[in-house]
């Protein structure tokens, strides 16, 4: 379903991804693990089209479409959702307004009918309950003054409401205590479906105790250098990333 072939991405003049190839079939959860600076976040940004992350070579095919040719909002309408490692604060825009605007923009782009306010509020109430979120928080400006855990829950809430088909989770566990981690993971697991693909980007194995991957890939030096089953994550946890680091980098980290 997601086919990444020989992808090269530069930020400014600096090449970060250097020939990344990866297939994620529908219904599967793939974990991307790797040392700091390997290009994990860059992969998430490149797939979602962040300005400044330029694909210089290779291709990304998603549901038969050339993803790299689309604007960020067009990709979103095609079902691409990036859960940000550091969700952005947007003063002056209440969370509810934001999510409804996004949902209706996506529906418009897909030629679907927009959701009216009462129906939307009903959806939000249910979704926020499942994530144990205070509904009043959604009346506040998006993410402004939210704690780290609240921001991550807000991301999962949006994921639940926008119903994407390609879910990219960038370090979703960072900044979460164990209780928050469980709630967030449950929220993510509830979204697993045969027609959805999921890419879980993480530095630590911990998250994968909660979100069980079908496949685990090691990203180092801008490429996938190893792939395996869930056991690979445990092996990485025990042995670290040292053997995947190119010799020149030794000691530099």
């Amino acid at each position, binding site marked *: 379903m997601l086919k990444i072939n020989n992808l090269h991405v530069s930020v400014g003049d600096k090449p970060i991804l250097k020939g990344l190839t990866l297939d994620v079939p529908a219904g599967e959860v793939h974990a991307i693990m790797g040392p700091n600076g390997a290009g994990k976040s860059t992969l998430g940004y490149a797939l979602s089209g962040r300005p400044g992350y330029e694909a210089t070579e290779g291709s990304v095919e998603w549901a038969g479409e050339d993803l790299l040719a689309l604007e*960020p909002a067009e990709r979103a309408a095609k079902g691409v959702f990036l859960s940000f490692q550091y969700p952005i604060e947007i003063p002056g825009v209440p969370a509810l307004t934001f999510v409804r605007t996004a949902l209706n923009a996506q529906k418009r782009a897909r030629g679907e009918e927009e959701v009216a306010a009462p129906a939307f509020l009903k959806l939000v109430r249910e979704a926020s309950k499942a994530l144990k979120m205070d509904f009043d928080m959604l009346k506040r400006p998006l993410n402004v003054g939210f704690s780290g855990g609240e921001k991550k829950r807000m991301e999962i809430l949006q994921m639940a409401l926008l119903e994407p088909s390609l879910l990219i989770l960038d370090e979703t566990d960072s900044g979460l205590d164990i209780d928050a981690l469980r709630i967030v993971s449950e929220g993510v697991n509830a979204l697993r479906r045969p027609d959805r693909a999921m890419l879980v980007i993480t530095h630590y194995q911990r998250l994968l105790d909660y979100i069980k991957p079908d496949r685990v890939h090691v990203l180092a030096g801008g490429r996938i250098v190893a792939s395996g089953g869930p056991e690979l994550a445990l092996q990485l946890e025990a042995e670290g990333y040292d053997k995947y680091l190119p010799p020149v980098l030794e000691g530099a980290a």
Partner: protein
Amino acid sequence: MSAAFNIDLTDAESFPSRRNEAWKYSDLKRWLREAPQPSPTAAVGAPGPFYDLGGDAIVFANGRAVGVTDFIASGEQTLRLRYISDAVGTGHSAGARVAVRAGAKLLLLETHEGAGSAYVAHNTLELDVAAGAEVTRVVLVEEPEDAISVSEAHVKVEAGGVYRQTIIATGAKLQRIETRLSHFAQGAHVQADGLYLLNGSRHTDLTSVVRHMEHDGTTSQLIKGVARDTARGVFQGKIVVERGADGTDARMGHHALIASERAEIDAKPELIIYADDVQCAHGNTVGTLDESALFYMEQRGIPAEEARALLTQAFLIEVIDRIEHEGAREVAREWLTARL
């Protein structure tokens, strides 16, 4: 130097140029070399944006008063002050005087409703706020892109008076909206807000001079603006604390977004302080829309243009939210949203 310019539309000699420090960013003389021919009479058409809020009205059409020009408020009143311009290439002046009696409460709803093209308008308002009186003034200014206008308000606030104003401007060829305000006696409270939203090659200049002449006055000023295309936004805010005006608390903030490569923002936030027991501060920022917020919104499926408009509105709305009167606030909100 800091005294108000006595502009007389019939006398080109009276037009300030950028050589006058207070008009550095709004060169009236450059755009208006000669005195314009007087405007013909005009009809009062539509009822104006604040019609639904009722109250009394002072109306000028091309400078000519339709009824009274002076108003004395007592008790609790609403006054709509309408400057209507509908002229082509001609000029007109209008002057209103409003006095608010001690302890009275006035909602002053001012509109500058421009039609036609290339006219020149000069409006003055004298406003006295007596001891303990309370005034909320909301000003909506909409004019053709090629009009020139200069509006001056001279406001005097007596002991314990409360004066709040919010100016909302969309610019013109040259648009200057000036407020000269004095804390004439002790313990007055002033809020002097404004916002501007400029498209095309429009220019607006929000200038204010707030003078603390007596002790324990407070001034709070929040100005926000957005300049798009090749527009130019100007803010000149001066707070003067005179000798002996101890206990003054004055805060001024101007925050502007430049939303295109070729727009311009000029700001001059001044503090002139001659008393030592004061708390005064100003802040000024000029920037662009937050790129990471834009990307975040686009990632969630909101197209770039819509995301920009939403962020722009979110940026400006803070000024509207500070309007004390609910009815006026909602009219202002709708008025602004329709022009985003």
